[in-house]
């Protein structure tokens, strides 16, 4: 039931994350889920991909520092209290959580420096959601 997660160390330089995504995309490796965490000068990206071994080899060859770890992926009921139920289960047994992130890959939230420009750039190319649309999901 364990799932392999690939973690990549990235310096905060523009285009670095795109390089990772491009590299995997070109080789036909699909990203099923991911999360990013950032500090002032670097960040780490956690990836769930279709072929973790090959993804790691590719990134390693391209000069990235990577790490494999084992995680669990849970189907959480899409209803109020759905996540709480899983968290309570672990908390009551004193199993602490290092981090968690959603791998439903359909809808992604971006925090960007220049939000207006990002919207301008993307609006004709992809579907952007409104506040109401997100709430109605």
């Amino acid at each position, binding site marked *: 039931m364990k799932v392999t997660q690939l973690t990549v160390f990235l*310096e905060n330089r523009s285009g670095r994350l795109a390089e990772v995504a491009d590299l995997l995309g070109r080789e036909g490796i699909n990203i099923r889920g991911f999360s990013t965490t950032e500090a002032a000068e670097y960040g*780490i990206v956690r990836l769930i991909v279709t072929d973790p071994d090959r993804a790691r080899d590719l990134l390693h060859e391209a000069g990235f520092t990577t790490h494999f770890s084992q995680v669990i992926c849970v189907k959480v009921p899409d209803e109020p209290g759905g996540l709480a139920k899983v968290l309570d289960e672990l908390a009551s047994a004193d199993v602490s959580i290092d981090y968690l992130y959603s791998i439903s890959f359909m809808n992604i939230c971006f925090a960007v420096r220049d939000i207006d420009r990002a919207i301008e750039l993307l609006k004709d190319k992809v579907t952007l959601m409104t506040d109401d649309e997100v709430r109605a999901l």
Partner: protein
Amino acid sequence: MSAAPAVRPPRDPDEAGGWYWDPRAERMSVDELRDVQMRRLQATLRQAMEQVPFYGRRFRDAGVTAADLDCPGAVADLPFTVKTDLRDNYPFGMFAVAREEVVRVHASSGTTGNPTVVGYTRDDVHTWSELIARTLAAGGLGPGDLLQNAYGYGLFTGGLGLHYGAELLGCTVLPISGGQTERQVKLMRDFTATGLACTPSYALYLAEAARDRGLGPDDLPVRVGYHGAEPWSNEMRVQIEAGLGIDALDIYGLSEMGGPGVAYECLCKCGMHVNEDHYLVEIVDPETLAPLPEGTVGELVFTTLSRRAQPLIRYRTRDLCSLIYEPCACGRTSARMTKPVGRSDDMLIIRGVNVFPSQIEEVLMSLPDIEPHYQIVVDRKGHLDVVEVWIEVAEEIFPETMGGLERFERGVAKRIYEVLGIQVKVSLKEPRTIKRSEGKAVRVIDKRKLN
């Protein structure tokens, strides 16, 4: 090209497994050594005074007469020579012989102004080869060995210096020069190179390149490396030795003294034997210029004793180290110099604390599993000196969580603070983003000088 001297094999293996090239000179009694030095010193001083106008003036201004030169200890009263003296007499003003007698010139990379030029007579080239033959034999190399010489060939003294000495010793020389790492690794294996000569940072780079190709120390035929031209620590020695599967020996020289061959380690690896019969060595206080006693760290000063084309008197190397006069287990009687701990002109003064880059390197190398790729960046923000230590995050040390990365940064900074007493900011970088050197490593960027 002088008539090739007959190849003679090195003799008398010493206890540590190395050889002597010239056992009579390398093992002469200390009394005999002092006699040789005195005789050669007097000839050198007289030659400098009479043949080099610069020294004629210098000595006259200092009130030194020909008669003074004969007193033992006369050297301690003589003026020093510094790098700018060589630049001021560019190109050939420091020669003590007619230019026609000079068969070779080398020059330092002059990043500012004129380069420093050094000339050699035919005899000088031969003496230089003798001293390199001693150096190589002390690491166990001899006839039949193949030396991969990855020092740069050209105006830099490393390439040709090692080349001529290795030929004199009877080695097969592979004059591959620096760079072309792919080819270095291939030829090293195809030709069964048993010796490697290159800068220590390039040795590490080669080890890394070999590892990237799946080659470990057991896959490489080299058994001894001769590494100089830049300062390196004992921790770095451990890394090179493990990576290439060799004994990594330090060699010391500077172009002003003729290049490599001034001092070298034997396989005991406990200080570099100074070729005292050819170089008179002193340690002085870099501030007061007063001579310092054995074991005290100060600036290394040399007087050439046999160089015909370009004698230099009390040349200030700017390298800081100490001398050991205690006899070495290998049987050589010469004084040994410790690895330079820094340079009197490179010393960083960080908020009033004297810091040598080598001290920061030592801290980094002592951490478990760390990659030795780092750079120190010094800047001034407002009135404060700010030091950043950039370290590449290798997979072996990648802690995988932000908390782990931050703990790692803080741990390194704390260790540096404990050892050196300065606050630094540690910045983690992706692999191979810090510039690799194929020549001299640039470990320190001091932006204060640029502002």
